[in-house]
């Protein structure tokens, strides 16, 4: 029991402590980073503001002095002292400006040097001196570059040409020592830990530096000191933005009115020192916080978990089947409620177990029953499945048969359709035949009529021939008469010739005529005889013609009779064809009816086939279902068997509990 309690609290601690530690660490790191960034920025701002302030101070100091020097120069130009008055004039301004302890001095192009009486200024060669050379490059007084004077001091001279209108060039000057400027530079640093130095960009000489030995030396990019080297690079490139050089934060500022650049730097370690301290402090606070939180968590967890022990004991008893326990349900937190609920649970469990015991007994009996019932059911369902299978095969056959019918009906419909087409064709042919036979009959009739005409014509011909016969007989009679006439004429002529001969000469003419007439009568007799002869021939020919015409008439009659028979036959044929035609039409009507019926039959039998297929599918489903039922009833049987066993087991388990 004790072990379990410890486990929960240590579990909680293993989860919570790392989270707390990580959170605190993250906070510390973020705070430290932000602080570092902000402090670096602040340091940069401070050094920039410091250096700008310093540059302003230097500028102010320089211009203050320069103004004083310029004023003196103007005064001198205005007074324009004679050669003898120069020294007293310079004396009068000696000692007024502590920044320029040697006071004013005047150099001329012919090598003269004038200075205040007390001044220590000395120059071996005025015109070769740096200050003189610088001085002749301007009229307005201005600072030149640094140089070492005859006393070994590094100084800067403010010089300018004294514009007195003469052709003799005079340069007025006043020196400022770099020591003075160094003091200004070094004491002007406003930031703790920061240093400054001043560089003249004309010759890169260092004018002021904390390290006195560097004053007057040149700032060089080949310097061994990384800081000086970096500063030199920046100044020479004219890039005066703040930057980091060799672990220093460096700022630059040009001093207006001069070509000087002030460089200020502060080691970053100084800037970040406070950041480090802050970081350490943050870590310490973090560590303390972690320790405190751990202790607090331990205490709280212990206190909260204590009542759980009792409940755990009770639950352990319960797990062993002991429900005779009493649970402590004091306390008003979740654990108190848990105790109360466990107590309720034990009470209800007791009740429940008792009823379960009863119920399980009943259940056992019922499950035995259901086991039996399910077995019966299984058998029933099996026989049902068999029946179903048989039904299925029958339906299958039925479907096949119906399908056959459908196919046959379709074929029949096709055949009928073909037949109808054929009979339609026959009908058409028949119609044609009717037409043709009609025409044949009418032709026959016209032929018969023509035959009639021919017979009539023949008769007329016979009649005409007969008339010719009678005419030729008349001609024969006429010719006989002519013969007689010619004989009498001949006799007359003979008489005439005898008479003429009697008459002698007088009758000679007449004798010739009578001779001529005798000749004519002779010729007429001859002609009449030939005509008679010809007529005899004609009469013979006419007899032949009449005979032949009669023969013709006879054959025509026979033909007419035959034609009449043919006409009658044609009529019969026509009638027959007409009848045949009407019968074919009737047949077509019947075939159409048959087609309709067979089409219907085909459609119906196809529907039947489809229905049979559906019935088949349904009966197959039924077979499956019956199978399923069989399987299910098998399962039910198994389950009810198991249930019977389970309820027995349950009863045995429930009996184990102590109530």
């Amino acid at each position: 029991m004790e072990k379990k309690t410890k486990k929960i609290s240590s579990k909680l601690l293993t989860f919570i402590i790392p989270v707390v530690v990580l959170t605190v660490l993250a906070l510390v790191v973020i705070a430290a980073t932000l602080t570092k960034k902000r402090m670096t920025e602040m340091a940069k701002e401070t050094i920039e503001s410091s250096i700008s302030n310093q540059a302003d101070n230097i500028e102010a100091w320089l211009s203050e002095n320069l103004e004083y020097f310029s004023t003196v120069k103007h005064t001198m130009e205005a007074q324009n002292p004679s050669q003898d008055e120069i020294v007293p004039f310079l004396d009068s301004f000696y000692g007024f400006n502590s920044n320029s302890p040697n006071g004013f001095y005047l150099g001329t192009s012919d090598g003269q040097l004038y200075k205040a009486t007390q001044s220590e200024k000395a120059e071996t060669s005025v015109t070769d001196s740096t200050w003189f050379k610088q001085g002749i490059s301007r009229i307005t007084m201005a600072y030149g570059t640094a140089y070492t004077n005859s006393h070994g001091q590094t100084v800067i001279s403010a010089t300018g040409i004294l514009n007195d209108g003469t052709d003799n060039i005079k340069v007025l000057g006043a020196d400022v020592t770099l020591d003075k400027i160094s003091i200004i530079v070094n004491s002007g640093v406003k930031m703790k830990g920061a240093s400054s130095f001043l560089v003249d960009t004309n010759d890169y000489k260092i004018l002021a530096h904390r390290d006195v030995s560097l004053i007057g030396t040149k700032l060089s990019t080949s310097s061994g000191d990384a800081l000086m080297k970096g500063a030199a690079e920046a100044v020479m490139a004219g890039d005066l933005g703040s930057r980091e050089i060799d672990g220093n934060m460096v700022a630059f500022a040009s001093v207006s009115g001069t070509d000087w650049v002030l460089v200020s730097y502060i080691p970053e370690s100084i800037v970040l020192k406070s950041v480090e301290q802050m970081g350490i402090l943050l870590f310490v606070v973090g560590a303390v916080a972690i320790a405190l939180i751990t202790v607090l968590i331990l205490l709280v967890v212990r206190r909260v978990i204590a009542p759980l022990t009792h409940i755990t004991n009770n639950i352990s008893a319960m797990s062993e089947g002991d429900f005779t326990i009493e649970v402590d349900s004091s306390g008003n937190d979740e654990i108190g409620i848990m105790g109360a609920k466990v107590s309720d649970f034990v009470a209800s469990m007791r009740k429940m177990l008792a009823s379960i015991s009863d119920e399980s007994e009943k259940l056992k009996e019922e499950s035995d029953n259901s086991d039996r019932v399910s077995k019966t059911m299984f058998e029933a369902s099996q026989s049902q499945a068999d029946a179903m299978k048989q039904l299925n095969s029958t339906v299958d056959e039925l479907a096949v048969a119906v399908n056959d019918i459908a196919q046959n009906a379709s074929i029949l419909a096709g055949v009928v359709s073909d037949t109808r087409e054929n009979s339609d064709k026959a009908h058409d042919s028949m119609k044609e035949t009717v037409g043709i036979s009609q025409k044949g009959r009418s032709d026959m009739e016209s032929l018969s009529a023509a035959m009639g005409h021919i017979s009539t014509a023949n008769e007329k011909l016979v009649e005409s021939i007969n008339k010719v016969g009678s005419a030729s007989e008349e001609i024969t009679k006429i010719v006989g008469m002519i013969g007689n006439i010619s004989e009498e004429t001949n006799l007359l002529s003979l008489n005439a010739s005898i008479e003429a001969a009697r008459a002698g000469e007088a009758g000679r003419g007449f004798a010739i005529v009578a001779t001529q007439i005798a000749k004519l009568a002779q010729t007429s007799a001859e002609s009449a005889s030939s005509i008679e002869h010809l007529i005899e021939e004609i009469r013979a020919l006419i007899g032949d013609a009449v005979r032949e015409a009669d023969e013709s008439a006879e054959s025509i009659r026979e033909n007419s009779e035959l034609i009449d028979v043919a006409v009658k036959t044609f009529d019969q044929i026509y009638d027959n064809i007409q009848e045949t035609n009407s019968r074919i039409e009737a047949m077509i009507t019947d075939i159409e009816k048959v087609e309709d019926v067979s089409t219907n039959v085909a459609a119906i039998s196809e529907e039947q086939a489809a229905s049979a297929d559906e019935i088949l599918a349904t009966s197959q489903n039924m077979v499956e279902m019956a199978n399923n039922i069989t399987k299910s009833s098998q399962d039910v049987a198994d389950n009810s068997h198991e249930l019977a066993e389970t309820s027995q087991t349950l009863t045995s388990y429930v009996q184990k509990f102590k109530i």
Partner: protein
Amino acid sequence: MIKNTNIKRFLISFLTCIAILASLTGCAGGAGSSGSSAGAGVKIFYTTPVLDDFKELLMNAIVDSGKKAGASVTVGEPCASVDDQVAQIRSAASSGYDIIICNPIDSETVLQMEVAAGDLSVIFTNAQPEEDKLEADKYMYVGSNENDAATFQAEYVWNKLGKPSKMNAVILSGQPGHPAAVARTKGVKDYFKSKNVDVTYVFNDSAYWDTDKAYDAFKVFLKTGQSYDAVICNNDSMAIGVVKAMKDLGIDTSKIPVVGVDATDGGCDSIREGGMQFTVYQSAVGQGKAAIDLSIALVKKGSSAGVEGVTEDSLYVWVPYVPVDKSNVNSFK
């Protein structure tokens, strides 16, 4: 009936004429307005110190460019003192102007001008304020980069002298502390440094932009007897003074280059006459146009992006200088 159709015909042709006229005038109106619509509705106030040649050119350029762009430009009475200018800006700020263009009397006092302008943007011109007094797309400077002018001068001199490695030079600067004077002098020195030329500035003093002062100073310098190869002046006026002094003493100005800045009429005349050799033209027209373009961009878009010559930091709009010597001096009046 006949009369009626005549009236109809007349009416139809009359109306057609009116329609054609209307469409023609309509087109003309459209074309006219499209050229001057960029700055429509922008109200600009310009404040200037008492005018000199260049300031007057600049003022006129700003007014003309404003007119061309369709913006309304009001020019305040030229101010004699910083107090006047501040008062003028304060009153302009409360009079419904969109932006102020300021030619400051003293570039040291621009912070006061910015405060006086309230929420309005201020474009400075002519006298360049220090960079930390400017703000991107709010307080900007339109001008010509003084350093460029100095570079042109030094480049001309060095080339003219045959690119020597050692030379003596005279520099005459403008008023001490004046940003242009400081920048131009520094620019010349930086150029020679960058070319590794060892230059001795045998005379280097201020002549306060003034011809007479330059004349006097140069005469004093000549008394020192030092040799010199070139005279570089911060402006044309001083260069003219130097040329005058040289002529008085019979010194050949063709041998020794005297150079200035600004391409003033006097400077150009001097170049034509063979006095000065070189100057640099600061385009008042270009600066005026740039100031107006920038004003319109800031008022309409709130950004100087796309304005010609604007720097990456959006603090300056640079109008390029043009070098002027004898070859092209006639194109600068």
